[in-house]
Structures are given as C-alpha cells and as structure tokens.
C-alpha cells in the first residue's frame, strides 16, 4: 500500500480501532472513503459509503454506555463490493434505559439512510457485544 494509487484486491482487509467518541466517528468516514476509493468505487458511491459508515457507527453505539468502549471497524474488499463491520467493544450496556423520542427518531432516520444507500445491512447484540455491518456493491459502468 505504498503507492497511493494502488488498487486494493479482493480479500484485502483493513482494521481501525478508536475510542467510541462522537468526535472520532469522522475517522471511520475518512478511512472508509480512502479504502473504498482504492477498491474502485466512484465518487457518488464514496459519498454514500461515507454517510453509511457513520450511520453504522451510530447503530453500534445505540443503547450502550460507550464512554469507556472502543469502536472497531473492519473493512474487507470483496470481488465487486466492500463489507464493513463495526463493533463496540469494552463498553457496558446502558441498563435498559428507554431511548428518548429524539433517539428513536434518529434511529429511524439512520435505518432509512442505510436502507437507501447500501445493499445489505444489519445489527446484532449478543452478551453485551454490539455489531453492525453493511455491504455495498460497486455499480457496473458501461464500457
């Protein structure tokens, strides 16, 4: 990866881990845009992925006390797609506190954005570990 123009190949995987703070979600957006550009996505698709990965981080943070946790982002280049996995680690659950109406509205909007921008996405929570993921295929270009 010394050549900034070098294309990434199927199977290449990049990991990023950072403290689960809102002001650092921008790191996920920056890395995703850079990696996806080298995986062959066009400018419009890069914008979609930039927005989608931020929403993915928000999904991973939902319902958790993330003040002491980390967000771990894993990007995998597939043949014609990119898969992004975002997990929240070392954070405690928020103890069943009901989300506020604003949080519910934001979650609904986040879901709509991901549904519109990526081919597949989901979220699962198990034993206190939260994982959100998405997959987006490259558009086929004429010629």
């Amino acid at each position, binding site marked *: 990866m010394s050549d900034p123009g070098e294309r990434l190949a199927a199977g290449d995987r990049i990991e990023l881990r950072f403290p689960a*703070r*809102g*002001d*650092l*979600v*921008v*790191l996920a*957006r920056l890395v995703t845009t850079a990696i996806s550009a080298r995986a062959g996505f066009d400018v419009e698709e890069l*914008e979609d992925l*930039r*927005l989608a990965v*931020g*929403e993915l*981080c*928000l999904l991973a943070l939902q319902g958790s006390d993330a003040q002491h946790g980390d967000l771990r982002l894993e990007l995998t280049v597939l043949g014609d797609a990119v898969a992004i996995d975002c997990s929240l680690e070392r954070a405690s659950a928020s103890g069943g506190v009901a989300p506020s109406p*604003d*949080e519910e*509205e*934001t*979650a609904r*909007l*986040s879901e*709509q*954005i991901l549904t*519109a*921008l990526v081919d597949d996405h989901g979220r699962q929570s198990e034993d206190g570990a939260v994982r959100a993921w998405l997959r987006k295929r490259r558009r086929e270009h004429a010629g």
Partner: protein
Amino acid sequence: MDQEFHIEERRGAVAPVIAVRGEVDVATAPQLREHLQRVIADGSSTVVLDLLGVTFLDSTALGVVVGAHKRCRELGGELRVVVADPRLVKIFEITGLTGVLTITDSLHAAGVS
C-alpha cells in the same frame, strides 16, 4: 476534527436566520440543537435554517432538524431549511423529509432578503 463547524445567528426581516457551516454529525449536532432550542424559546416560531455552508449531515443532524420543525409547528410557525448541495438534498429525499419540511434552495426563496 470539527474545526470548520460554525453556527452564526442573524436577524432576518421575517425570522431569525441560523447559518451553519461545516460538518453536522453526532459530534456537532448537539450544538445546533441547543442553538435552535434557544432561538425558539426566545419567542421565534418561524426560523430559517441556512445549511448552504454545510458539507456533511448525518441522522443525528436530521433528528435535530425534525425536532426543531415540530417545535416551530407547535407554536404556529415553521422551520425553513435552506439547502442546495445535491449530496445533502439527497439525504433529505431518501429519508422522506422533503415531503415534511419546508425546504428551499436559496435564502431568497426562504423569505430572507
């Protein structure tokens, strides 16, 4: 990381104008929420939200906009959102908010001279 984020308030002829610049996301949206809540609490039922200088919006930003829209409606006014960047307009479209909010592509169209 949000050094470009900036909020400016000015008095328009018919309503206060809140002009935002930079990225509005989970880190900066709370500042926008506080600003809008204060302006509305000060007695403005109609507010112009100028997003012409915004480069990025996420769901938390949209949630703030929707919340302000609801509060303005409850008071008999409206939130007029000014946004022109096609990338941002697309976000309002895919979330169905173009059918809910009053959105214009210029300050003039929002009634700001």
